[in-house]
């Protein structure tokens, strides 16, 4: 496994398999990204972590409900399949599982962990071609569960 930790975006870290292609701090608000090795499926499994400011008045519930609406509006054939309340680094978080279709017409399964920490919304989104999901589901779940948000947020 490879440990990825972004300091620039507030100590966000996760573990990915050693053979995944990884990127740290490639763009503002995207501290960590990683891609699985290519497969015959014309879509590479990937995980992307984003960090964004969340208005102080917004509750965790309002934030993740808003994310559901945004996903539904922005992703083709978005279908929410599961929504689970979990914790990330001891903080209230959600994990959602959904299906959608990419611009190239490929059916994908998306899992997203979302946590609010010190006024920052952190999401880890893992996207897997649905045909590869049986093989990659456990690995992606392990990556999601490894998400850490250890503070050190830029003010």
């Amino acid at each position: 496994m490879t440990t990825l930790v972004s300091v620039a975006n507030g100590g966000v870290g996760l573990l990915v398999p050693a053979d995944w292609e990884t990127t740290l701090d490639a763009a503002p608000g995207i501290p960590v990204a990683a891609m699985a090795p290519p497969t015959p499926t014309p879509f590479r499994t990937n995980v992307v972590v984003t960090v964004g400011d969340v208005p102080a008045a917004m509750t965790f519930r309002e934030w993740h409900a808003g994310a559901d609406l945004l996903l539904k509006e922005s992703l083709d054939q978005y279908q929410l399949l599961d929504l689970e309340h979990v914790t990330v680094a001891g903080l209230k978080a959600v994990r959602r599982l959904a299906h959608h279709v990419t611009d190239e017409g490929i059916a994908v399964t998306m899992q997203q962990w979302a946590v609010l920490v010190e006024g920052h919304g952190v999401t880890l989104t893992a996207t897997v071609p649905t045909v590869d999901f049986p093989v990659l589901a456990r690995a992606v779940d392990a990556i999601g569960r490894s998400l850490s948000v250890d503070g050190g947020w830029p003010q």
Partner: protein
Amino acid sequence: MIVDFAPDAGRLRLDLEAFDALVAGGDADAVAYLRDAGLLDGDVVHPAIRPAVEAARAPVCVLDVAVAGTQGSTEHRMWLAPAAAACLLHVSDGVYQVFVVDPTQVPALVAKVVRLGPRPRLTPGAVPCAFVVVAGLTAPDAEQRAASVDRLAETCPTEWAEWAEELRGGRWRMWSARTTWPATDLTPTGRAVTVLDTPVGVVRVDEPQVDVADATDQTSLTATTPTEIWLELTRLLPTDADLPPLG
């Protein structure tokens, strides 16, 4: 025979008799009816539904979905070919709507048909149960279904009391999705998942096993999650390794 074909609107609704005649051919009257309905031009299938007919004529795999509830049961069928999947979804009174989707989108279509979605978590565990009780939930007779619901609810542990109450209140749906294809030795094989769903949690119905002691089929109900069910749905379809070699 019933056919409602509106190619400009992308809609085809028909009964099984018409679909069978379209796919496998029928007698002269049936073919004449299909021509009048616009589904056939001579012997050529209308281009709007040709992918569906071709998939149904030469499927790699067939997927049957059955959904049961207090109001009775409905069944849907999908034929998966490499290029497309033909989906015959029951609308009402023996009339089906035909959909054509990419085969990779079949699990999502099944999820939509069975209304897979977020559910609260049940206390983890499994409950043994006579299969005849579970099968009774799909009985044609409403009283028999109600009796099976009561027997099933009685077998639930106290941790599942709320779930059992949903059963008794009629707020349940049992569904199964079953794939069939010719194995590498050409004998029929497949995979299946059966689920008993309520607004307060979802359980998987395990495949029945014969209990040698009393010669009855036994099953178990196992608390699960929509995520695990989605995983099962994506596993239903055969992989290249499951299928006989081409040619």
